[in-house]
Every structure is written in structure tokens, then in C-alpha cells.
């Protein structure tokens, strides 16, 4: 009876579910696990990596204010914009968690691979080795996201251990990233050799490009070894450039159109479905303008017939300071920022129509156009991939590193690649008048300091509101007279254009100046409070939080 009883009350697994123990012993299981390490990149409903990355990367910079419906809308994101940051802040907590999701599944692949390999046949061995390469590249990607925000980290390299870890010195994290990326670049195919069906997976070019970025960050962290790391960054960037795995698209704006997905310019992209579904598409909604008007708008702007409808959530509003950074006539301004008079293609029903944008809710008077140049996606529309790392970023890293090691020839050549493409990008019809011949101008100076400033500004323009700005500012902070604090405080206090208030309510107030105070502690984000508590204080908190 005893044995029979035991069997009766043992239900090994729910029919149709896989047990975790057996799943990761096959090549397919590892494929589905490495897919999970990519998964946050897709901006899925479950895991809003894209949005939280944007909050951390832009709202602390001089480029953007939080925006939204009002100052209470997503107030945790507003708090980051206000530098009113606590360790309980939710975008910060989510960001930390999401990056570790990527690390966990990358670790699961790397950890399970030896067992899977021992049982695999030849074809399986090749597959598994490739998945391990992808996993190493992804592990480095996620650690890089973390290390530049938090500094020292618990360096977790397996998926099963539950032993509490203290934070390791960030240099050890950098060492691990370099090791992973070098191994990954050896295991992975070149981007231009990737089968069409594999587009979006990590490549040797992606691993090398990330490595170049890792080196240039490290150059700022270790001033006495700066030259070494600038040289490594330069050499690695040059290797990528010479490998011709990537090339710039002929037009700047193509990057934010569907035809720009998985293009020659994309180094790391977050794949989005061909047909939009309920679990994707949150990214574009987050930054799209808040309201639009249909119907007729009279010149006075106040007698609008037809009412405003909610549209996007209107976060991530470009600052006046950012707009001012463009050379007059640079076509990239049009493709980056919505200004008064711009309209927007709205795909509400079966017909898309151009609609007036209401700037009433923008705290700066501007909205971000990247993500929505093709119109707001309908539920059945495809939405474009999220571009996390573009080739122009790598070119500018190469240029910056080259300038630092006194190689102005390569610096100017790579900078010119980026600016030439911008110059040849058409401005939109109604902005044709803005366009000025030979803008952006061809840079010829070989003065190291002057060229550094030009490259720094070029990064800001070319990669405008692509969620990397704050890390560049922090990288440059305290060097060559550059101050993160003053750059951010100045930019955030600039009042944007006080456009005619477009509102259907009989109330409304003009824009006001914002005062933010940046403290030294803000160079790092706080370790999430729950993380410190659940680890029983094994994890230490960053200074000042």
C-alpha cells in the first residue's frame, strides 16, 4: 500500500509543461533559453526594458525632460528627471531586475552547455557552441548596462546557485565583460555573413563593437591607464570598421522606418514582431505626442472644432538646450524632434491621416519624432525594431578614441562619414527651407581639444535621445573642464518655446522654468532598496542613497 500511495499522491508535472531539469539538456532547450536572454531587448509587455532604459539614459541628461500627461504621470520617472532619486524608485528597480533576467538566461545557457554538449551529435555541437557565444555576448551586454549605472555589482556567473553574493569591484566586472566579448567574437559569425533568418542575433561584429565601447568607458574610469584603453578602443573600432560588417544607411531617417530594420547600420537591435501584438509596441506609445487634433484649427489656435484625442503618452520631451545644439539647417533636427507646426501621421482607423500635434502637455514644447515618423502604429501594424547600438555610434567611438591618441586623420575620416550622411539626408518637404547647403559642415580642425568638443557634440546630435546621453556625460565629467552637473542643470532650466496653448479646456498655464540640483551621488543610481533588504545587506548601497 505504501508504494502505491506514494505514487498516487505524486504528480510529477503538469501535462504540457517542461520540467526545468531536463529542458536545458538539448540544443533546442538551449536555443529557447538563449532567446530568453535576448527577450528583454524586444520591449515586451512583461519586461519593459526599452522604457526603463530610456528613463535612466535620457531623463538624467541634458537632452530630455520626462513629459507625460502632467508632473504626476509616471511620477517615478519624473523623480529621476527631478534628481529626486530614492532607492525605492521603480524604473530603477525594474531596470536592475530586467538586466539580471538577461544575465540569468545567458548564465543558464553557459552553465548547461557542457552537459548538453556531452550528449550532442556533430550538428548539435556547432549549434550549442554558437548559443554559448551569443550567451557570452549577451551576458556582457547586460553587465555593461548595469555597471555604468551602478558601479560595483554582484558578479553572478551561473544560473542555479542561490548563494548570496556581495558586490564585486567594477573593474572585475569589466574584466569579465572583456573576456566574454573576446570569446564571443571568436565563436560568432560576422554580421554580413548572417543568414537572413538569423538577423538580430549577436555577431562577432556586435561583440567587437561592444568591446570598443567597453574600452572607451574604461578609459575614463582608470585615468592612469586611459591611453591604453583609448588605444584598445581605437584598435577594436578600427577592426570592426575594416571588417566591413556594417555600413551607414544612405539616409539618416531610414533608421526609424520599417525598411531600416536589421539594416547594415544596426549592430544590436531589439526585434519587434512583423504583426504587432498585444505584448509589444509599448515603446512607441511611451514617447509619441500626447494629443493631436483632427478638424480645423483656426489661425488664432483657440477655436478648434473637433476635440483632442489621446494619442501617445508623451514622455521623453527634447529640451530647448538639445534643439539649440543643432547647427541651423541640420536635417537631423527634423527627424529627431517634433516642433510647432509639425503634424503627425496617425493610424487610428484604416486610413492614416495627418493630424495637428498639441504641445500643451509637453513640458519643453517639443516631442520626440524618432519611433513615430511612420505614424503611430495601428494594432495590426508592424512596429520597427528598437535600435540599441548603431554603426554611427561605433564610428564616433572610433573617432573619439583616435583623437585621444592623437590620430586626427582617422578621427576626422570617421566623423566625416557620419556628418556626410547627415548632410545628404533630405529634410522633410515643409522643412526644406531650414536646410542649408553644406550643413553639417566638413570638419577639418586637428586641434585635439577643439575636435574633442566637436565629436562630443556630434555624439549628442547623431545619437539624439537614443538613451545613451547620460553615460557619455558621466564619462566626460571632470575631464577637460567638462561638468556633468552644470551641463544638466543649465539644460534643464531652459524654458522651451511658449507655443500658443493648444487646449480644449478653459484653463491652462504657461511653461515654467524647472530647477534641478545634481549632486555627486547622482553619478550612480542607487542599488534597489528591496535588493539590499532581501540580500540581508550583503549588497552595500551606493554612497549618498
Amino acid at each position, binding site marked *: 500500500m505504501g508504494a502505491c500511495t506514494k505514487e498516487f*499522491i505524486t504528480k510529477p508535472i503538469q501535462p504540457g509543461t517542461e520540467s526545468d531539469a531536463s529542458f536545458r539538456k538539448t540544443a533546442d532547450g538551449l536555443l529557447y533559453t538563449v*532567446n530568453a536572454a535576448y527577450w528583454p531587448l524586444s520591449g*515586451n509587455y512583461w519586461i519593459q526594458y526599452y522604457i526603463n532604459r530610456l528613463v535612466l539614459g535620457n531623463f538624467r541628461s541634458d537632452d530630455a525632460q520626462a513629459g507625460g500627461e502632467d508632473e504626476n504621470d509616471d511620477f517615478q520617472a519624473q523623480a529621476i528627471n527631478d534628481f529626486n532619486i530614492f532607492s525605492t524608485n521603480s524604473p530603477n528597480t525594474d531596470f536592475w531586475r530586467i538586466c*539580471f533576467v538577461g544575465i540569468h538566461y545567458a548564465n543558464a545557457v553557459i552553465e548547461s552547455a557542457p552537459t548538453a554538449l556531452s550528449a550532442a551529435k556533430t550538428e548539435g555541437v556547432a549549434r550549442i557552441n554558437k548559443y554559448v557565444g551569443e550567451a557570452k555576448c549577451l551576458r556582457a551586454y547586460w553587465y555593461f548596462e548595469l555597471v555604468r549605472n551602478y558601479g560595483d555589482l554582484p558578479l553572478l556567473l551561473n544560473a542555479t546557485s542561490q548563494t548570496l553574493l556581495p558586490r564585486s569591484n567594477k573593474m572585475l566586472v569589466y574584466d569579465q565583460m572583456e573576456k566574454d566579448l573576446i570569446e564571443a567574437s571568436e565563436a560568432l559569425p560576422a554580421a554580413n555573413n548572417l543568414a537572413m533568418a538569423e538577423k538580430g542575433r549577436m555577431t562577432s561584429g556586435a561583440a567587437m563593437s561592444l568591446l570598443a565601447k567597453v574600452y572607451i568607458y574604461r578609459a575614463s574610469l582608470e585615468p592612469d591607464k586611459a591611453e591604453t584603453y583609448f588605444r584598445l578602443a581605437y584598435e577594436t573600432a578600427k577592426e570592426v570598421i575594416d571588417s566591413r560588417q556594417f555600413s551607414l544607411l544612405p539616409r539618416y531617417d531610414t533608421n526609424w522606418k520599417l525598411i531600416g530594420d536589421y539594416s547594415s547600420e544596426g549592430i544590436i537591435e531589439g526585434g519587434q514582431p512583423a504583426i504587432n501584438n498585444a505584448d509589444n509596441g509599448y515603446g512607441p506609445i511611451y514617447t509619441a505626442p500626447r494629443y493631436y487634433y483632427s478638424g480645423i484649427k483656426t489661425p488664432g489656435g*483657440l477655436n478648434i472644432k473637433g476635440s483632442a484625442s489621446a494619442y501617445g503618452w508623451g514622455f521623453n520631451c527634447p529640451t530647448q538646450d538639445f534643439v539649440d545644439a543643432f547647427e541651423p539647417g541640420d536635417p537631423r533636427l527634423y527627424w529627431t524632434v517634433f516642433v510647432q507646426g509639425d503634424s503627425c501621421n496617425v493610424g487610428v482607423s484604416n486610413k492614416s491621416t495627418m493630424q495637428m500635434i498639441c504641445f500643451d502637455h509637453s513640458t519643453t514644447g517639443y516631442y520626440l519624432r524618432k519611433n513615430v515618423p511612420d505614424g503611430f502604429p495601428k494594432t495590426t501594424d508592424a512596429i520597427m525594431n528598437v535600435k540599441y547600438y548603431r554603426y554611427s555610434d561605433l564610428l564616433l567611438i572610433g573617432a573619439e578614441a583616435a583623437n585621444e591618441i592623437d590620430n586626427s586623420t582617422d578621427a576626422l575620416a570617421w566623423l566625416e562619414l557620419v556628418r556626410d550622411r547627415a548632410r545628404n539626408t533630405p529634410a522633410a518637404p515643409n522643412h526644406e527651407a531650414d536646410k542649408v547647403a553644406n550643413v553639417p559642415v566638413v570638419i577639418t580642425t586637428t586641434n585635439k581639444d577643439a575636435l574633442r568638443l566637436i565629436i562630443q557634440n556630434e555624439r549628442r546630435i547623431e545619437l539624439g535621445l537614443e538613451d545613451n546621453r547620460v553615460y557619455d556625460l558621466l564619462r566626460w565629467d571632470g575631464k577637460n573642464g567638462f561638468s556633468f552637473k552644470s551641463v544638466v542643470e543649465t539644460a534643464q532650466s531652459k524654458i522651451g518655446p511658449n507655443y500658443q496653448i493648444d487646449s480644449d479646456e478653459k484653463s491652462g498655464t504657461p511653461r515654467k522654468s524647472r530647477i534641478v540640483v545634481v549632486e555627486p551621488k547622482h553619478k550612480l543610481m542607487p542599488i534597489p532598496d528591496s535588493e539590499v533588504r532581501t540580500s540581508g545587506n550583503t549588497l552595500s548601497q551606493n554612497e549618498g542613497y
Partner: protein
Amino acid sequence: MKKRFFKRLVAAYLLMSFIVLGAVAQVTVKGTIKENSGAPLIGATVMIKGTVIGTVSDLEGKYILMNVPEGKALVVYSMIGYKTITQEIDGNATIDIKMEEDVQSLDELVVVGYGTVKKNDLTGSITTVSTKDLKNTSILSADQAIQGRATGVLVVNNSGAPGSPVSIKIRGIGSFGNTDPLYIVDGMPVKDASFGKDDNPSGINYLNPNDIESIQVLKDASSAAIYGTRGANGVILITTKRGKSGKMRVDIDNYLGVQSLARNVDVLDAQQYAQLYNEVKIDNLFDSSGIPGLNTTNWINEITRKAIVYNNQVSISGGSSETNYFLSVNNYNQQGIVKGSGYNRQSIRLNTDSQVNKWLKTGVSFTLVQSLRDRQTEGGNGVIMQALKSDPTMAVYDSTDNWSYLSRTGGNPVGQVERNNYSYKTTRMQGSIYAEIEFIKNLKYKLNTGLDRSFGKKTDFQPAFFIAGPESSPNNTLYEGQDSWNNWLMEHTLSYSFTKDKHRLDLLTGYTAQFERKESYTMGAYLPTADPDMRYFSNVKVITDILQLNGEALEWALISQLGRLNYAYDDKYLLTASIRRDGSSRFGGNRKYGVFPSWSAAWKISNEEFFKNIDFLSVINSMKVRFGWGKVGNQNIDAYAYLGSVSNRPDPGRLALATYFGLPKAAAPVYVDKTLSNSDVGWETSISKNLGLDMSFLKNKLTMTIDLYDKRTNDLLMTKPLPMYFSRLDYLFGNARVNLGNLNNKGYEYAVSYKNYESDFGYEISGNFARNFNKMLALDGGQPPLSGTTVVKENIPLGTFYGYKTEGIFQDQNDIDNHAYQVLKTAPGDIKFKDMNKDGKIDDQDQTYIGNAFPGFVYGFTFNVSYKGFDLNIFTQGVQGNQIYNQLRQTGLYNLTLNSNASADLLNYWGRPQADGTNITNTNIPRLGKDWNRNMRFSDYYLEDGSYFRIKTITLGYTLKETFVQRLKMSNLRIYVTAQNLFTFTKYTGFDPEIGQSNGWNSSPLDFGVDGGAYPQARMFMGGLSLSF
């Protein structure tokens, strides 16, 4: 014709099961049995003691016993509800008997787990609701029978929609998971509560309430511990009617009623809406000269109706002293007051018991129920909310007789109601059979085995439609799903009773096994047609048209050993002790088995000599104190919570996880950790103590029961957050379930009843009252499930609402400047929030505890009056001291921008220009316009007192005089009228203050008391007729 058919049916049945008796006849005993009043008593049993010779009295109360062996014998006259009489005879005799009604009912048997016990001998805390309590009222569902009648049981209708499940909580909340009690119907544990909540709910509302003989609620652990891991939420035992020895009896009961919306919520009419709109918005949409002529559509009136309810019940019952039978057929139909909703149920039941021979008794309980429920959408996106918010200036239909397009508010509610075809059909078979063998006197073995099968089918069909503007669907859409449950039970019990001198001992031991499996699937697709009759999956293009396709299976099993001892000495001292050991498939390897002991004792003080000798105590007829202690478990945990698993679809309600690669882009499956293994996960344990006092006074006319209890629940099932860097994703999935923390429920219950039927004017008043105090004692780092509105914190009760406190309305800029900073654009007329932490600004740190969703006390009163043929029953119930979060108001009706219709309260908004040139300032309604200040944030502004007192039913009946009825060849004829939900006294401003637990996926007891637009309760008037032959 019908009657003859039944007679034949029964005759045939009886022929099959009768044991033909040997016949050695000598003398005859006959006579007439009458009630005290002189009326003949029909169906009383007459038996010769110690033999199987017996009969029942006929329509005129006459009986005749032939074949009585010669010599001295004892004749026993008995009937339920009357005092048993024993008469000695010797030879032929004619004995006329008057039987006295037994109003004391202290000798009645109470069903306890795996047995029965005399009410007088109870040692635990058990509340009984019997047919007698319900006799003269019309109960629409089984769970309704408990509301207000069972002390200490909180019964709340989650919705007024016909056929919707209720939430039942016994002595507070002892878990964050499922808090439904265990239901046992005729010994068969019904479908598991943790398996499905939405359409095919667990619980007892599938039962035909007319079949219920009694309901026992086992409240304390000493009573429930015999149910081990399933007893922690209390146990509800239902016994259905069985035949009584005697002449065949046919009972017919029919009623017919009409229902209407009990209470409405005032919204703006067209003139008011247009006026306010123009006052607030720039675009002056409404031409002011045209406003007086606007036609108003009251959308709630358009989607509701007067609805019919009816019930037809026929039952036949009877039996000999060897075999009895009960057969019933029922048809119940209730239209919903919201158009397109309704519920109907057909059921058949057959219960039999046969004394096959001296040592073998066997019986069957079988029921087949079929129900169909049509639903409309409820809650925030439901049609009721939609109707309240819809534009009152628009007509229902446009000039082409199509649904008009509501350009401002969208979604024509009448169109929604008319298009919606959501139905759920169930077929349920439940049967059990038992055999009881008496080996030697009082040593009995019983085998009880049963099967509960349920099949449900969901159909959600939306035909193609067209409304001007964006609202149209060119295709039919169909979702269909099926689920099936299979639940079987096998129980072996052995019992022995022993009486010697003043000692009485009952022993019970048993071995039981139960297994349950659920399978379900749902699919949905666009149908490539606009033909509204095309309601089947055909011509579906597999890739592009399929909207949903998923299925699952779950199973669990339980094996148990149990034992119980009852000992009584001298009818003064009683002791009960029980133990159960459960082995469950749901728990981890280290906690597969649990042992649940209990004991209780009682002292019948009134049976002590000294008590009888004290004069002033003579007014007390009986007095008993009880004390019990026990340990019970709650196994309501996911069936596979202890296992580590990975899944492509951790949440069946959402899409399969995917990331996208390649050109063209293709979905690549993503598998994540769904559950993490934990071999230590087990049941929640609750340990409770109960102290009770039962007394009766004044010749047992006045009875009362008081109970005090203290229940502590340990090992609550929660997730314990580990650092996120281990990738414990969050509460959605990937967290291991652990047993942590503890909470406490304590309280008292009081029930009192006074009956007097000594004269023609009989009456009875009974009332009950219960108060529960809940407190979260320790979380131990555990993470309870998140709730949108209430918080779980140590040292506060569960169900505590958490939000801002308000302090009125800002009157001017000065007022704003002197108050803590709210937002940049705060203006006069905005709501003032309280700065709880006094830091000079209002932010989320200022949220605090602002109310509780659970009532402080729950009560019910019943009044029964009878005079000659008339009977009047008034049943009232209520709750006191809880708050309701009026989300209807917060997210719907206090729409300050007037983008949709709003509550009539808004007419009085702050700053509204008056005819005399002044503006309204003395108001609690904020200014209208864009809500920069977030006046809508969750605050005590939207909490309302949820106390209510309700006259739930009033029934007036008249039973025709026997003489008249007998001329019609009937034994009884009663006509009655009933009003339900006649009056509700409450301050609550929504449709109804009875707000339960939202019923969605993942519904938790922490989401209680939120009125998000639930289906309103109906007021009902009905008339009925019951007759017996």
C-alpha cells in the same frame, strides 16, 4: 395523468428494491394519529419495536398494522418534528394517538464529518441551517440560504447577475489565496475551489436549493480537523432530502416573479450634460439655444428591463421501514435585469436508502444538473459602466435604425448588449453510493464512493456589425472553450459505539482517497463571414484568423487516514478527539504528509444534581459549556507549486513569449522559469481555540449560543523575494512559494432565538450577530500577492485600504500656498490632500490607511409569525463598519473633463456660476476641467461607508384549511407572495452596498469591497403555490 405516472414510477421502483417479508400473522393494531390541534397527522411512522414491522399513517391519519406477533409488544410512533411516543400493547388493539410537536429541537441530529451527533451533544462550534428555517421562504440558490442565517459566516454576492457565485468567508480571512470553505454534499467533497473561479465556479450554487434538507457549517478547528488539510477555511456540509417511511408524498412548488433594478445611480440628463459641457469646454459644442430641446437617453434604462423569474419543483418521496426514496425534478429560470443576461437550471435528484437485511444498508445519492448562464460584461469595461458614461444627448438608434454612433463616448451600450452572446453551459453529474455493514451490534463498516463530473462549455460570439465611425467589425468573432472536471472519492470507515452504565463511547476510523482532474481548452477565431447564423468554426484560415488557442490539464490527489473518539459520561461530560493524516500531491517532497489533531470537551452543567437543586436556575432548561482546540490546514495552492518548471506561456491569459529575429521577422520561442522547485512547500496551518456556551430558557422557548474563538494561521503561502539578481522575475512568475508568516482572526458570535407556538398565534424571533477581528501578525519577509487597493502590513488587518486622506477643497490661491505643495498647476477648486508626513509636499509617502473592506460585524434577524393558516416571514440581514471603494465614481462618474457622461453630483461643482452672479463654493465636488491635481487619485474621497441593513425577504403565506384541501384530495395547499430586496438602508451611493470580491483571473481575497461597476442587484416580487398530495 401526471400523478398516475409518478405513482407507477415509484411503484416500479419500490418493487425492485423491496424485500418481501415473511408473513406469520397473528394480531392487528390500528388507530388514528392526530396532531395536538386535532388535525390528522399524515406520514407518521408506526413500528413494532425490535421488528421490521411497520407502516405509516394515511391521509386521514389512520394506520393499520397487521402481522403483529402475539404477545406483549411496544408500538413506536414517530415523526420528524414530533415527540416520539411508545405504547405497550398486548394483542389486538385500536390506539388513537395525539402527537406533540417537538419545538425544542435539541434532540435533532447534526451532521458532522463522517457521522452525525445529537445537537445536544455537540462539543465544537457548528451552525445549522435547516429546512425548517427556510420552509416558508423562497431561496434562489443554495448559498443564499446561508446569508444572514449562519452565525459568523460572511456571505457576499459578488454580482447581481443571475447564477453568479458568491463569496463565503467563515470567521475572517486566513489566507491570501483561496478562502472558500470546503463543501461536502452528502459526503462528497465537491469540485476543488482552487481550480477555477470564473465561469464554472466551485461551491454549491449548482445545487437545487429546494433539495436541501440541512446545511451545517463547521466553524472551529475542533469540528473541521477531521477534514485535515482542507478544513482551515471551515467546512460546509450539505445534506439533501431523503425519503421518510410512510405513504408516498408528492410535493409541488411553483413560483413566478418579476424583478427590476432595485436602485439607480443618478447621471446627468442631456440638458444638464450639454450645459455643463459648455461651461467647461472651449469648443461650445452645444448651441445654447438648442439645449432645452435635447432629447435625453437614459442608457441604464435602455439596457435594463423588468425580468421574469420562475421555479417549478416536483418531488415525490416516501418509503417503507426498509426503503425510502426521494425524487425531485426542478426547473428554475431567472432572467437578468440587464438585457441579454440570465440563468436557468434544470435538475433531477434521486436519493434512496435501503435496509437490505439486518446487517446491510445501502443507498444512493444522485443528481444531474444542467445550467445555462448568459452573461453581460461587468466591471470597469463592462456595459453597466459604459451605460452610465454614455452620451445622454444621443439617441439609441440612428435614422437608419442602426445603433447610433456615440462619437464622444464610443461604444453604444445597447449595441453592446444586443451583440454580446456570452453563455456558459454546464452539465454536472454527481453521484455517490454507500453500503453499510453491521458486523456485530454497533460495529459498522461503511463504504462510500462517489463521482462528481462536470462539463462546461463557454461560447462567446460577436456577430459582424457596422456603426458609423471606427466601431465596426466586418467578421463574426467566436470564442469557444470547454472544461471538464472529474473528481472521485473512495472512503472506508469503521465505527463502533458502546454504551455501558453511564459511559458512552463512539469510535470511528477511516481511510479515504480522492482524485481530481481538470482539462480545458479555449479557442477563438475570426469567422470569415458576416452571416450572424454562422456560429461555428468553419472556413477559418488557420494562420491569420486564429485569435486564441490554448489548453491545460491539472490533477491532484489526496490520501488520508482519520480517526475520532466521542466519549460521554453520565450525559454530563462529553469529550471528542479526532485526528487526520493527509498525504497530498500538491506539496513538496519534504511536506507530503500532515497530521491534524483536535479535541473538544463539553460540560452539561444543567444535568448536574446541584444545578437542578438551585431554585432560581429552574428558568434555565439546559446549559452547556464547550471548549475545543484543533489544528487544520489549507491546501489551496496551485497543483504543481512545488515543482520547478519552464514555460513558453507562464500566464495562460497572455500570448506565448517570443522574441523576433530574421527578415522577414519571425517569432522565436522564449522559455522562462515558471516555477522554482521547493520541496518544503506545504499547507497553511491554522490553530484555533473555541469557547462556547449553549443555553435554553423558559421551557426551551428561548435558546442562545455564544462562541468565542481565536484562530491563528501559520505558514501562510507567500512568495519570498530573493535578491532579483538571481532573476526571480517578480510576483508574476518565477518566484518559489514558501510558507511564511502568520495572522490572527478572533471574534465572537452570538445567536439567540425565541419561539412560542403554544397558541394559535405562534411566533419566532431569531437573530445572530458576529464580530471578527483580523490582524496580520508577521510577514517574516514574505511577499503577499499584490492587490490594487488594499495593503498587507504587519499589525494591521487584511483588507485595509491604502491611499490619500483628503481635507476638503481649496478655496483660493492663499489656501493653496498655505497648504503642502501638491502640483505646479493646483488651482482653487482642487481637492486638498493631507500631508501625513508633514514634509511640505504631497507625494506617495503621504498615503496611509484609510479604511477596511471587511465589515466589523455581520448580522441577521428572522421573524416568523403564524396565525391559523397564515404565516409571515421577514428575513433581514446586514453588515456594519466596512468601507466600499466606489470605483464607479472614481474612474467613471466623477469624470471632471466631461468627456463622457457623469454623475448628477457634478452639477454642484466648485466654481460653477450661479444665476445670481456668484460661484458655488460650498461644495465637496471639485472644479471641472483637466485634472492636473489628480483629484482622481485613490483617496478617502472615494471610500464610502458600506454598512447596510436589508430587508431581504418578506413572505406572506396562507395554508388552506385541511377540510377544504382534503376535498381536493390534497394534503396541503399553500399560496404565498414574496418580496426580495425590498428595502436597503445604507448611505452608500452606488447601486448596491453588497460588494464582494472581484471575480477575475487571479482574484484574491485582498481585492474585496471594490465597486467597479458590478451588475446591480434586483428587487423581486413573486407569488407561489405549493401543494402536496
